[in-house]
């Protein structure tokens, strides 16, 4: 049997998390370095996964399968398809930057006793999230997926509730209240979603007699396994609800602005760039893969909700006064695009949606982390407290602008490619939806540029006049992200090559073909 | 004598015990009423044993008596400590079970 690469990719950060948590209180810096090295090692393993993966090969590769709970047919089954591999790569890529960006976010306050070890906990929790996310991208057993999908909530809860943004406007007590509100809200929303999904998971077991995704999908395709229409729809809804909360889709989105606003910037990136991707990924893999007919049945409603998300998220972003909440609402708008692409049921739409997940991870990370650096300098999240930063910290302002331009999908940067693919894919089948979605690009320009104008330009405010420019550590976080954004904007082929075959499989799952152009132009 | 009459007696005893538990405030009396209820149950168990012609009920009655004895030990100890600390054996004085 070959080396279990996927398990290793998930196990390394798990061991790292335990080791990091065990570092003594006084050796704080050692814990940070340990966590960073472990995340870099994980990145190396993820790179190995990318290298070993053959785009043209089997649908699921690097598979591992071991009996786990034999009585219920639960197996420890891992396997990566192109979409999963791309997202594992994204996760492993972003975690080192998140750790590096949060280098000082969890330093203990002077007033606490010396045995207090928040730093170790902070980095160990981040690594734990990485473990769960990687496993959920790799799990092909529905029950295993459910377990890691839910287990992810525990470290996330502590990260949001335990390590808030120190730059809170207002008293410490107020900040703590807000923070615990956000953490509880995050947990409750996702638990409710998870609970409904659990019911659907059990229902699936009753209907299909097993949890293995490839086996169920194959049995469905060959006609061995048929589901009654209503059963299939109910099960679909159970799964979809959980993923729509996680994604988040309007109107299940309100936990995201709170969670992103109250947590530290790196944790906010972890939420929106990494954890939320599990929701959209799972829609593509489980909703479409297990319940193709129900997916087709639900498409009109899902598309409508996605369009509402796009426009609504963008409009609310325009109306925000808090930098981080603004980015959160922008993310809601972008998730609308991803879901639109998934449910448009065209190759371009689904390739675009997958690419969008990767690119949105990079662009939000760039924008949010720079915003975090900005906020930590001034100690306020309110847009109105800034002005003229460009004059005193040009590099910070420049990187912030690039992050913003990526968010508004400027051609030449990676998000444009994916957004355009989603638009093309949607427009081919649903022209009206495609046109409504294009309004999103105007609104995206509005909220990004308003944010940039109010914080970075104009006369220099008294409070920001002494603001230092980006430090070496911070530049080391932002520069590679920007480089990746530009590279994937100009040459997205490495990612599309991996993603395309997986999308073709999904398209055959749902038994759809792309609409033909009206005129077969001379090629 | 018809064994059903024993059941009637047990029911009456149980009712007396139950109303005593609910009405009386003195912990000792409440405790005695609990014992009365237990013994009412014992009586009906023995009567059932006789009616059905097997020994299951009598065995159960022994169990009850053993448990009741153990309970008396623990219960009286609690009441005595309560009385020591509060100088009263009234049940209503203490709402200690509330968090």
């Amino acid at each position, binding site marked *: 049997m070959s080396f279990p690469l996927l398990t290793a990719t998930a196990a390394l950060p798990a061991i790292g998390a335990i080791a990091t948590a065990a570092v003594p209180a006084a050796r704080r810096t050692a814990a940070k370095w340990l966590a960073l090295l472990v995340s870099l090692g994980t990145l190396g393993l993820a790179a190995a996964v990318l290298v070993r993966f053959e785009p043209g090969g089997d649908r699921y590769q690097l598979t591992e399968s071991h009996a786990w709970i034999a009585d219920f047919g639960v197996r420890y089954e891992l396997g990566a398809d192109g979409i999963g591999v791309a997202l594992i790569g994204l996760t492993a890529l972003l975690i080192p930057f998140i750790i590096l960006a949060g280098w000082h976010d969890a330093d203990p306050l002077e007033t606490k006793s010396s045995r207090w070890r928040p730093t170790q906990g902070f980095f160990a929790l981040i690594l734990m999230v990485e473990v769960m996310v990687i496993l959920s991208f790799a799990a092909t057993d529905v029950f295993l997926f459910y377990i890691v999908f839910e287990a992810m909530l525990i470290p996330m809860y502590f990260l949001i509730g335990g390590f808030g943004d120190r730059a809170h406007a207002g008293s410490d007590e107020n900040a703590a209240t807000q923070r615990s509100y956000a953490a509880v809200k995050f947990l409750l929303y996702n638990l409710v979603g998870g609970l409904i999904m659990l019911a659907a998971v059990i229902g699936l077991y009753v209907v299909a007699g097993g949890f293995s995704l490839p086996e169920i999908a194959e049995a469905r395709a060959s006609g061995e396994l048929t589901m009654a229409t209503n059963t299939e729809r109910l099960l679909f809804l159970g799964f979809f609800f959980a993923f729509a909360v996680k994604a988040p889709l309007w109107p299940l989105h309100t936990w995201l602005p709170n969670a992103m606003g109250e947590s530290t910037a790196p944790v906010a990136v972890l939420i929106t760039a990494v954890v939320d991707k599990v929701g959209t990924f799972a829609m593509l893999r489980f909703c479409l893969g297990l319940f193709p007919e129900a997916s087709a049945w639900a498409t009109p409603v899902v598309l409508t909700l996605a369009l509402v998300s796009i426009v609504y998220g963008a409009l609310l972003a325009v109306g925000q006064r808090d930098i981080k909440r603004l980015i959160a609402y922008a993310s809601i708008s972008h998730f609308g695009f991803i879901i639109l692409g998934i449910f448009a049921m065209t190759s371009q739409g689904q390739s*675009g949606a997958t690419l969008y997940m990767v690119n949105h991870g990079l662009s939000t990370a760039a924008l949010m982390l720079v915003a975090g650096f900005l906020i930590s300098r001034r100690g306020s999240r309110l847009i109105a407290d800034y002005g003229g930063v460009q004059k005193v910290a040009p590099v910070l302002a420049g990187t912030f602008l690039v992050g913003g331009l990526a968010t508004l999908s400027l051609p030449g940067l990676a998000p444009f490619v994916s957004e355009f693919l989603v638009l*093309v894919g949607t427009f081919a089948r649903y022209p009206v939806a495609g046109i409504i979605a294009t309004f999103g690009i105007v609104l995206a320009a509005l909220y990004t540029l308003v944010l940039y104008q109010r914080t970075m330009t104009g006369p*220099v405010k008294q409070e920001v006049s002494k603001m230092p420019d980006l430090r070496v550590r911070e530049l080391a976080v932002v520069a590679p992200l920007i480089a990746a954004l530009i590279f994937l904007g100009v040459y997205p082929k490495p990612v599309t090559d991996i993603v*395309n075959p997986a999308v073709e499989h999904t398209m055959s799952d749902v038994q759809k073909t*792309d609409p033909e*152009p009206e005129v077969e132009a001379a*090629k | 004598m018809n064994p059903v009459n024993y059941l009637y007696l047990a029911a009456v005893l149980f009712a007396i015990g139950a109303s005593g538990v609910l009405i009386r405030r003195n912990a000792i009396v409440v405790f005695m009423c609990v014992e009365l209820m237990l013994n009412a149950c014992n009586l009906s168990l023995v009567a059932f044993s006789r009616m059905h012609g097997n020994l299951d009920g009598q065995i159960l009655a022994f169990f009850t008596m053993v448990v009741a004895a153990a309970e008396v030990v623990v219960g009286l100890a609690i009441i005595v400590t309560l009385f020591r600390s509060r100088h009263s054996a009234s049940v209503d004085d203490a709402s200690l079970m509330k968090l």
Partner: protein
Amino acid sequence: MNTENMIALLIAAPLLGAVVLLCGGRRLDRTGHWIGTLLAAASFVVGVVLFTDMLGRDAEDRTLSQHLFSWIPVEGFQADVAFQLDQLSMTFVLLITGVGTLIHLYSVGYMEHDERRRRFFGFLNLFLAAMLLLVLADNYLLLYVGWEGVGLASYLLIGFWQHKPSAATAAKKAFLVNRVGDMGLSIAILLMFTTFGTFAFGPVLSASAAGDTSEGKLTAIGLMLLLAACGKSAQVPLQSWLGDAMEGPTPVSALIHAATMVTAGVYLITRSGAIFNAAPDAQLAVVVVGAVTLLFGAIVGCAKDDIKKALAGSTMSQIGYMILATGLGPIGYVFAIMHLVTHGFFKAGLFLGAGSVMHGMNDEVDMRKYGGLRKYMPVTFATFGLGYLAIIGFPGLSGFWSKDKIIEAAFAQGGTEGWILGAVTLLGAALTAYYMTRVMLMTFFGEKRWQPDAEGNAPHPHESPKSMTIPMIVLAFGSVFAGGLFSLNESFAGWLEPVTAFEHGHPPISAGVIMTATITVMVLGIGLAYVQYGRRPVPVTAPRGSLLTRAARRDLLQDDLNHVVLVRGGEHLTRSLVYVDHTLVDGVVNGTAASVGGLSGRLRKLQNGFARSYAVSMFGGAAVLIAATLLMRAV
């Protein structure tokens, strides 16, 4: 080296400049501007080499193409990074790199005292790269990249003096209004993809010309392309950003907002000629937009006291001419491009002249505070004067040749439409003569009306340094001779014909009559301006003016309309949505949580800690259970 492989070099040179200058850091502060200028010049040299190479080949054989790599390979979707250099692109390449290099040179002097000069040159180089990408792309998606790229460069350069809130606002506005246009372009591309399965120029245009699809589809595509052109070329109804864009440094106004970027809409429509030719309704819309903007810009230009804003109104109006000409079909494309090139020369020259005047006048822009400058700035006066004569269409100069042809083509449209268009273009010519004469008289003639600036420094007008005057002189040469050269044997029409097709128009009245009419209205315009501003002294504070003047000063109330409808409406919408999100969407969830909390609070009261109440509930429970059991038995 194979000439085809040189196309990418055109873009690579300024792109390299942008990367080096923007990432290079402080160490390049002292040399950066020369690096930028040299790379722009390098691009121009490559352009000239390609041009001579192209001239050496047959007319049919002049299109070059270069395929770099496959950009977005996805099932059923092909987007390549590939370039196409034909006569139309070549014309633009020479204009962009030529005028671009001159303006780089000019900026070396103009931005001498700006501490962020290196970045300015980085942005200028970025603009050149994006603009060249726009005109060299061989498909609409790559064109779109350049299209937004120039929008970004324009944003960065308008807002270059970011510490001024007005500049930052103007930059944002320009980008946003352009985005509305970009939306049109992206919808057009989406339509092309669903209709033709591709968006490369070749297949799309040949299929449109062959009539493979319905006219309705083509009309829709055409209208969306027109929307895009309106955004980029500041045509009604998306023209409002151009006036504000004058907040940027003057070389930027000259290069981007006069000579090159704003003409991208004309390029787009000309390039998509086959689509418009097959969709007469879309063509009509193009003509209407052009005609309306032509007058709109001219009227605004007549009322502005800010020299740059007056010139901006003029730019809008001149591009209106070009758009109108492209709407006329094959009889107009060539003249639209010809006017575009001559306009590139004289309007860039005029803006550089205006910059030179501002340079000497402590950055004062109000023409009412100029006056009598011709003695102090002879070179600026001469070059500005030649540009002035060119734009009003003085016989023999560049503007005369190109504008006169457009007026002829407008008449040649035939029927009532032809007469209306002819009249509009003639009226536009009169207005052009009027507002330009007004600018000329207020700036260079009359008595001095100079005022000290905010810090109390009285202006000491002086001629600008050589690096600024040389580009102005070169552009003045272009303003004088380019039009005549192009019209010689219809050389320009012959050059472009293989790309855009060319037909001779047949106006209902003879060309001589039209030419006479053009010259007559021009003289009338000059005369009127002379009576108002040459004979009488110009008041330093603007008089109240008629209703029309006041409206024109406020850009014909366009901004007020935008403000009321879009800005206010948008603010209300977003604010109420924030409220809805907080109270309704979030409220439902919080309400559920609160009611669960309230219920548990009530239940908690049952747990009062008294042993006897627990006993009651136990007995009650037991009684209920027994009753239920008996009841079940009975049933």
